[in-house]
């Protein structure tokens, strides 16, 4: 195919009459998913944005108040704490949790014997229902002398620790729990990416005398850098929206030390039945996350492009 031929090739228009008739069956098959997507993704999103500009009674609209709900939530005495805490969760999750699945995936990829057992073992925490995981960890973090972790550290001659009761450590400890619960699933994604690396590169590097660390540095990491970047942004987006963990482990305490934006949104909606302010917090979070999400889409597209080459 000549360059001239390539340049005149047009992108097919999906909604072109002829094309549509040709793809009618496909459209028909997609219709249930499309409707589900509209009802369960777009409808709540648009309703939420809509409600955030209104005074509400329950979920019913009372009157348009413009940015009144936004003003209410931003001037609320807990907003700054919730915003800063959400950022702190994200930061700690990158410090504690970002490298763990990459390391685990690389190690699993290197293991030859009983690989299946290790894969299962690492993935096992991801199979436990979230609430059960967080309640179990809250129990382990019990600050009493007989608390699980305090019993362990007492055998090492250390004094009992306050764990979640210590406001400066609360978020970090919650992030440890989140990492434990989630690293297995993320490691599987990295493993899938690792298995796509051309094995000949490793063989060639071995012949050239490259060791384990050099192979990781010059072959593995460059080859999975796209997915690493993608997962980094995904992690920022996900962790910034943390809610279930502080809700079930600390209730946002002590003294707002673990309150997050989404937990604040939950409290508005469920504890105080204030749908408008709750939605306003959701929209603010959405706007903040729009930046990393845009990056995510660009990278995702780039990744797909590079995979297609």
């Amino acid at each position: 195919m000549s360059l001239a031929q390539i340049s005149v090739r047009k992108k097919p228009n999906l909604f072109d009459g002829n094309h549509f008739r040709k793809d009618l069956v496909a459209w028909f098959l997609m219709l249930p998913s499309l409707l589900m997507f509209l009802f369960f993704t777009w409808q709540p999103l648009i309703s939420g944005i809509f409600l955030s500009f209104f005074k509400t009674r329950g979920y019913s609209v009372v009157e348009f108040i413009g940015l009144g709900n936004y003003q209410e939530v931003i001037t609320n005495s807990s907003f700054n704490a919730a915003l800063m805490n959400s950022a702190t969760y994200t930061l700690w999750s990158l410090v504690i949790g970002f490298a763990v699945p990459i390391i685990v995936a690389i190690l699993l990829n290197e293991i030859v014997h009983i690989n299946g057992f290790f894969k299962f073992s690492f993935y096992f925490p991801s199979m436990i229902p979230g609430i059960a995981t967080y309640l179990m960890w809250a129990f382990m973090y019990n600050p009493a002398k007989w608390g699980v972790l305090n019993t362990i550290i007492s055998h090492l001659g250390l004094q009992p620790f306050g764990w979640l009761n210590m406001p400066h450590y609360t978020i970090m400890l919650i992030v440890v729990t989140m990492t434990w619960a989630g690293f297995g699933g993320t490691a599987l994604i990295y493993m899938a990416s690792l298995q796509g690396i051309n094995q000949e590169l490793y063989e060639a590097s071995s012949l050239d005398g490259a060791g384990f660390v050099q192979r990781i540095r010059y072959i593995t990491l460059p080859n999975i850098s796209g997915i690493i970047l993608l997962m980094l942004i995904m992690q920022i987006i996900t962790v910034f929206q943390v809610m279930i963990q502080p809700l079930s482990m600390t209730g946002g305490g002590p003294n707002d030390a673990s309150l997050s934006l989404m937990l604040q949104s939950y409290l508005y909606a469920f504890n105080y039945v204030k749908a408008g302010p709750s939605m306003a917090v959701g929209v603010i979070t959405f706007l903040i996350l729009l930046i990393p999400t845009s990056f995510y889409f660009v990278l995702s597209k780039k990744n797909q492009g590079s995979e297609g080459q």
Partner: protein
Amino acid sequence: MSKKLIILLLCLVVIISTFSFNFATATAAGKKVTLVVGDWPRENEPARVATFKKYQKIMLDKYNVEVIPDYYQYAVSSFLPKAAAGTLPTLYNSWFTEVRKIVENGYAADITGPMKKAGWHKSLNPQILPLISDQGKIYAVPKYAYVQGLECNIQLFKTAGLVDAGGVPKAPKTYEELAETAKIIKDKTGAAGFILETNNNCGGWHFMNIAWSFGTVFEKKEGGKWIAAFNSPEGVAALQYVRDLKWKYKVLPDSTLLDWASGQQVLATNQGAMLFFNATDHDGFNFQIDNYKISKDNISIFSLPAGPKGRYAQIGGDIWMFAPNATKAQIEAGLKWLELLGKAPQFTDEIKENEITNYKTDVAGKHVVGGKELQIWTDKAAIKARDELRSKYINVNLGMFKDYNENKATLKSEEPVACQELYKELDKVIQAVLTDANADPKALLDKAAANFQKDVLDKQ
């Protein structure tokens, strides 16, 4: 079909579903009334299930009302979705603390007319009526009501040598005594002497009892405006007392994130000796007994202690409310149903029969029958008949409940405005003084009062 048409259709779907949440649902009126009843007993209570089924039949045969069971029990996390989706049972349970929130959001029907028609409003305890009313209208029927008391773990009191000749705990009469008693228990048993709930708004809720007894006024109206007043010297003294329990007497549990359930866990598993709690017929201590296996004979309860400015105890309890779309016929049918369940002012043979089943279930389940709840209705003959029946099933040493049953404290209802928000703010200051030995109660309360004023009261 063209591109424009597809896009138009998809947009229509989104728009219609977006704006459809506010549409009212029409209620079909017919001869037979249908009543969906929430908080239906589950299979693990066969005797109650059988009684409810019997009453279902009575409702159908006698009143032409079809009662449909629904297992929904009120919970903060599930109420809003149920209410917003219009799927609340016609008759659902809730708590006294939730009435204002539910009414303000339009999720309960006004039942003043049917209550007056049935004559129930005349028999209501005047202390309870304001808790179920808003602007002169009645929105709920009380299921049971209680006064907060001081629950004691008898075993820990015994181990600490703090029981009288009859084995009854020497419970504190003042908050000063409470701290000293708790200290003795802590020193002699290693368990926490006193358990103060601190989380999920329970901290603020329970702190009220202490603060009122220290003379704290939380909210006051000045020139038509509500003012947060709890950063007073009295409020500071009450918070200082809580701080002292942690850092001076060292009698509180290690965890500073205790809520309603975890507070009870500490007491029921012998890790704590005293807790603000309440007794009611058919429910009081069931959660502790069923989940943490504390024996009913290890439980006693007393009137709350007195502070420097009085002896106050908060009222609480459960209620029945009607879905906002309930018709007059459904509300009247609901009152008939509650009458069968024994939640009415009168005490008929049918009610007596149901109460006998309930007491038998309590006794079989080794639950406490002995603690007295607050009287909801004022009909003396009915109260006497209920007491007589109850006395036949008492299964605990009444000496352990005497002080609570005779209640020595002045009863107080919740603060008038935005209690849940107030409790949340107080949770924070309590958590702050319990996690930081150097925390300044005055500075914390000043900040909390300013926050509560700005975030909540100024917007009333």
